[in-house]
């Protein structure tokens, strides 16, 4: 009955089919096959990644919940926990940018509030093709307004993120959304169906035919052919989600339910089987009771629909009425659609007829894991040595060119579309090294950032991944926050290609090593494979989401220069490193060389020093050096305050001037301090064995850099600022 063609359509191999038949003891019917196909898809089953992800450190004294739930949970003291996670919505955002991105936000929000936490912050990591192509611009416009449209209306601030541009994302943009929620430690909920006889309630939007096989779509390469079998794209309904959020938090707060799970990828199938499996129970569901948007839906369609804004609850029979009353208050129905039973089977019926009868464990926990073949490229992707490069004639010109590069330019065009202040916690608005949120009623604050330079990972996935962790932590250190936990989104190409699998392994190794070095647990994440379009893979793109904590918010430091006459101090060393830099890409049109080297021990020392110096009150501003190197970092410090302040810098390093200005050597931080504090700062640095040198002074209306007596840069701050600020908006001006 089930032939090869049907299996292919479901993305299952004959071997996997054999396993399924063995586990259920007979041939599955089509609906059951559909269930296995989504639950055993790459997206849900982590077939290719699972054995590698095991290498990530997941333990730590704050960890309340590591990977394996909807989101990770960390203890932040005072009876409170944070719940956070990152998700990708790459393919849907290419097909329908607005709705794809919007429903991406909706999905990650549900992952957070399903655990009992109120979402308090969203961050987004976006990758597009270059904005000079109108197609890329329209994807970007749609994605940004989709994130805004959803997040803004539901009232969760989008407080930070990142945007990169590279041609490798032309046909495959990346939309990764991170969300963090806050909860009381004794009010956490899990996706568990416990207690035989307990009722299963369905809440939220009606089930339609949308997004059937979204999970399988996210588990296949994209090409001309898939364009035709595009499933119905889901449309987000943020208002419905807001009702759902409030009602769910209310029933949880009042202790009315036993377990709860959102319906994300694979919809009703995933939520019912997962909840049953986690509770070690079985479940019966009557599909006639499932609210349906369209007439005549088959069990296959009802079970595999990915309609948005739906949740599944489990409550004891006595509490059902009370739960329904809360939902009614929020204008939502909460029909009982089934029951928790003994026996570990999911038994689903429609019109009195059993249409599915399978062991939940097989569906949820027994998806095979593969060690896919991997193969390093014959030679390093970036070549072994850089070609001889001519030194620029005019450094001011090069500098302006970099400031105008979309990856470096001001991202205000993006974030001013996001409500980043709602909930009145946002202390550092987008534009700082990390977002900073106060916690009401305490002195503590949370900092968070997303990072990942895929140019580095393309050239050397392992080093690139380590740098992503290091840089994210450095961003936190610059504002005075200690990192406490990590989530990550691993965006890669087709894992069936050995080179892609090699990139993945290397990147995970790098992540694991770096997280160990910083002693931060990975509490969850997401893997997005098959980011290939028409045979081309994206650059491997691990995106790190790292959360930090500050004990005293009043000590937080922002990147902008604070006043004229402060000393500019450079932490770290300038090395002859240009590989993978934005300078090479923009000015020399080269994606080549090896990425900057990273020594995790040294990096950690520098960050510790930064944190201690901030703690001691010695630092007036701090900013890490990243894309565009020293020159761009100086500019960002000059631009960031409400009043722009210039600086004059003099350096003696014996390296190429272009490397000095624009090289991206790691572990460097640019600080300012009051003159009177310089000696103390230096003394602290000496004790910590951290190179720290005064390189100049803030003040004036220019950014001026001198190298061994030669003036390299001399630009009015205002001019540089305009170039940096206008670069992105200029792409979006409608020309008449």
């Amino acid at each position, binding site marked *: 009955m089930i032939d090869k063609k049907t299996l292919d359509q479901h993305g299952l191999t004959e071997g996997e089919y054999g396993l399924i038949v063995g586990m259920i003891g007979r041939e599955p019917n089509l609906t059951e096959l559909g269930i296995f196909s989504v639950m055993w898809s790459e997206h849900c089953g982590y077939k290719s990644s699972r054995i590698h992800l095991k290498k990530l450190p997941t333990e730590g004294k704050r960890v309340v919940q590591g990977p394996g739930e909807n989101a990770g949970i960390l203890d932040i003291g005072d009876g409170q926990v944070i719940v956070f996670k990152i998700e990708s919505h790459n393919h849907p955002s290419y097909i329908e940018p607005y709705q794809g991105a919007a429903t991406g936000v909706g999905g990650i929000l549900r992952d957070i509030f399903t655990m009992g936490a109120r979402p308090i912050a969203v961050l987004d990591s976006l990758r597009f093709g270059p904005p000079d192509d109108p197609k890329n611009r329209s994807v970007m416009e749609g994605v940004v307004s989709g994130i805004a449209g959803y997040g803004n209306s539901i009232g969760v601030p989008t407080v930070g993120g990142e945007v990169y541009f590279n041609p490798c994302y032309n046909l495959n943009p990346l939309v990764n959304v991170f969300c963090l929620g806050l909860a009381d430690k004794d009010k956490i909920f899990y996706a568990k169906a416990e207690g035989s006889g307990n009722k299963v309630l369905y809440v939220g939007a009606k089930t339609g035919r949308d997004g059937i096989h979204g999970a399988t779509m996210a588990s296949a390469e994209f090409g001309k052919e898939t364009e035709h079998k*595009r499933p119905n*794209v889901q*449309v*987000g309904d943020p208002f419905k989600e807001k009702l759902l959020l409030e009602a769910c938090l209310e029933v949880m707060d009042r202790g009315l339910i036993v377990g709860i799970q959102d319906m994300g990828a694979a919809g009703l199938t995933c939520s019912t089987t997962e909840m049953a499996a986690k509770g070690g129970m079985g479940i019966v569901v009557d599909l006639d009771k499932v609210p349906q948007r369209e007439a005549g839906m088959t069990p296959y369609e009802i079970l595999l629909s990915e*309609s*948005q804004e739906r949740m599944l609850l489990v409550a004891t029979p006595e509490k059902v009425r009370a739960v329904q009353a809360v939902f009614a208050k929020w204008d939502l129905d909460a029909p009982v659609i089934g029951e928790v039973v003994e026996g570990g089977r999911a038994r689903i019926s429609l019109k009195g007829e059993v249409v599915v009868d399978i062991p939940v464990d097989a569906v949820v926990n027994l998806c095979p894991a593969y060690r896919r073949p991997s193969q390093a490229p014959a030679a390093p992707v970036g070549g072994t040595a850089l070609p001889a490069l001519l030194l620029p004639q005019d450094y001011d010109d090069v500098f302006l060119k970099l400031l105008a590069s979309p990856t470096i330019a001001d991202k205000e065009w993006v974030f001013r579309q996001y409500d980043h202040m709602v909930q009145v916690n946002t202390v550092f608005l987008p534009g700082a090294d990390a977002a900073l949120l106060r916690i009401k009623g305490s002195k503590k604050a949370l900092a968070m950032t997303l990072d990942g330079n895929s140019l580095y990972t393309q050239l050397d996935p392992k080093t690139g991944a380590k740098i992503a962790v290091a840089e994210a932590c450095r961003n936190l250190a610059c504002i005075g926050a200690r990192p406490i936990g990590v989530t990550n989104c691993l965006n890669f190409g087709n894992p069936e290609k050995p080179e892609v699998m090699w990139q993945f392994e290397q990147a995970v190794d790098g992540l694991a090593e770096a997280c160990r070095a910083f002693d931060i647990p990975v509490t969850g994440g997401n893997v997005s494979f098959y980011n290939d379009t028409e045979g081309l893979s994206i650059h491997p793109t691990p995106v790190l989401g790292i959360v930090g904590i500050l004990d005293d918010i009043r000590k937080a430091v922002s990147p902008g220069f604070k006043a004229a006459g402060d000393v500019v101090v450079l932490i770290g060393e300038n090395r002859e490193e240009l590989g993978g830099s934005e300078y090479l890409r923009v000015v020399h049109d080269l994606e080549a060389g090896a990425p900057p080297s990273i020594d995790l021990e040294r990096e950690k020392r520098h960050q510790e020093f930064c944190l201690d110096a901030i703690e001691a009150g010695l630092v007036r501003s701090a900013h890490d050096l990243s894309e565009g190197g020293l020159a761009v970092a100086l500019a960002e410090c000059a631009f960031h305050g409400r009043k722009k302040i210039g600086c004059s810098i003099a350096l003696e390093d014996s390296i190429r001037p272009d490397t000095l200005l624009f090289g991206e050597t790691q572990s460097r931080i640019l600080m300012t301090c009051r003159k009177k504090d310089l000696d103390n700062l230096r003394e602290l640095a000496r004790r910590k064995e951290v190179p720290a040198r005064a390189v100049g002074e803030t003040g004036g209306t220019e950014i001026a850099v001198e190298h061994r007596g030669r003036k390299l840069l001399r630009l009015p701050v205002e001019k540089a600022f305009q170039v940096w600020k206008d670069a992105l908006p200029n792409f979006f001006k409608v020309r008449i």
Partner: protein
Amino acid sequence: MKVRILVSFKDSVLDPQGQTVKNALHTMGYGVVKDVRQGKVFELELEGATKKEAEALVPEIARRVLANPIIEKFDWQIIKGR
């Protein structure tokens, strides 16, 4: 010539806007309204176009700019001129 293009979600796609309007109308006592779908309408003034030209042009514009064919459908007609 003036043409009118109606763009709306395909029938199988959720229409949250229409749904909220419907719910509001019910609350206000207009129970007779069984369903609401909401869409967009564009009126384009085309200069010196013939009917034939419009027939080529309008669907092209609708598909490329006004509607996303993945989730939306459109319909058009000439409302002034010929």
